[in-house]
């Protein structure tokens, strides 16, 4: 597998033919994390889904119109792992079976050893044989995260992957993701300025006018949560978000 490519997006999101915001012209740098912030309904998830190749044929749904290209010119399909906003776990499978779903769907035999290792690292080793209906929301989200990490693809697209977690688990999962997805091109949608400042090599704010970049601190992510420059940047970003219409 080749290295992670940069991805260039140019276009706009529309709902039922009506443009939702101005033209977005955004490059996701190769092997780096881009965090997308913006108010609800501004089209963040639609943007993410389009990079995943999930733009529906249904004209009533929101769609991305424009071009999405990888810097190496190859197709994105097959190189993307995607974690949806709702914690998609299959209730008829155990935790472990949920995590190795990708290989199972492709008809290949899964690497159970690394699946178990990953389960340990997301703190669910003791629950591996439980049905997912027995889990809490935060545990389900960790199952979904582990499954996404298990895919080990050069591009990762995460839609609010840590939203259901308590503060300490969230920090742990952020560290784990930063480590396992290092060197990959990552696009992550978040509502939390602190998360964006902690994790993003690049921070993009989506508004009805389009996407604007916000300068993150100089330190490389994952940044210390309470480092002065992190806190300053976070405060400034929040003020900017509140001011942005």
């Amino acid at each position, binding site marked *: 597998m080749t290295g992670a490519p940069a991805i260039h997006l140019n276009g706009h999101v529309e709902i039922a033919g009506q443009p939702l915001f101005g033209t977005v012209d955004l490059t996701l740098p190769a092997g780096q994390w881009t965090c997308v912030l913006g108010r609800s309904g501004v089209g963040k998830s639609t943007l993410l*889904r389009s990079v*995943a*190749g*999930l733009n529906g044929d249904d004209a009533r749904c929101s769609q991305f119109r424009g071009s999405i290209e990888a810097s190496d010119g190859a197709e994105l*399909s*097959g190189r*993307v*792992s*995607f974690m*949806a*906003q*709702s914690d*998609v776990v*299959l*209730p*008829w499978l155990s935790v472990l079976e949920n995590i190795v*779903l*990708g290989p*199972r*769907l*492709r*008809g290949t035999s899964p690497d159970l050893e690394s699946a178990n290792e990953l389960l340990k690292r997301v703190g669910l080793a003791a629950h591996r044989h439980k*049905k997912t*209906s*027995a889990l809490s929301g935060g545990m389900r989200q960790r199952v979904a995260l582990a499954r996404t990490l298990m*895919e080990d693809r050069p591009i990762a697209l995460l839609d609010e992957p840590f939203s259901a977690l308590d503060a300490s688990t969230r920090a742990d999962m952020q560290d784990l993701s930063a480590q396992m997805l290092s060197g990959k091109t990552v696009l992550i949608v978040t509502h939390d300025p602190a998360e964006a400042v902690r994790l993003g090599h690049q921070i993009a704010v989506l508004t009805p006018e389009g996407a604007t970049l916000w300068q993150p601190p100089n330190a490389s992510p994952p940044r210390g949560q309470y480092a002065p420059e992190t806190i300053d940047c976070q405060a400034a970003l929040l003020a900017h978000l509140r001011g942005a219409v």
Partner: protein
Amino acid sequence: MSGRITGAFAGGGMSKLGYAFGAIVFGLGFWMLVIWVTGAPSFILPTPWRVVQAAWDNRALIGAHTLITATEVILGLSIGSALGIMTAIQLALSQRLYRVVMPLLVFTQAVPVFAIAPLLTLWLGYGIASKVLMAVLIIYFPVTSAFYDGLTRVPRDITDMARTMNGTRWQSMRRITILHALPSLGTGLKLAAVYAPIGAIIGEWVGASRGLGYLMLLANGHAKTDLMFAALLALVLMTLTVSVAVNTLAARLKWD
């Protein structure tokens, strides 16, 4: 304290049985009342006691015919469900096939199965084959339709995930879609368990030499109304048994 709580629960269990018992007593009382008010002779409407008596006196006869009808129902259920399951999966795999086949299925549903029963008997004879086919025809559409609904209603987030994982069509069907649709299939099978005996009985009415439907017609023809009611009782008990069995199976078609 705990004694009182246990008592309350035990009372709940008792009252459920109590209600069922009450309903039966009410039904029998109404039955007796009708006989008493209208003065109907026993060849028009026998007393419950005479029906029980007839059932006991003819237990071997009724048992043999029940066995025939039960065989027809179980065969019809199995074959019809299997055909319905396979059809639903094929339709879910191919949108084009769905567009061609679904109107045909709806059209065949517009033909009352009762109306073609004589034809089936003409083609397949007086044996159990024509009755099994009747049952199959009656349950095929409900099973297909219920299962297909479940197969096509997998939430978008799950299908999206499967797409980004580049799963093969068959693996996605086997590991996600079919499992997601199992509760819907359970609903279809429960309906089928109640419909299948209707098909079998109609088949027997039209032309048969064995089975509960045949026995009822025979008893009716000889003015043995008590025997007819006894056969009806056997039919009800058989249908309930099949229905309970299928409900038990359907309850297991859950995700967890």
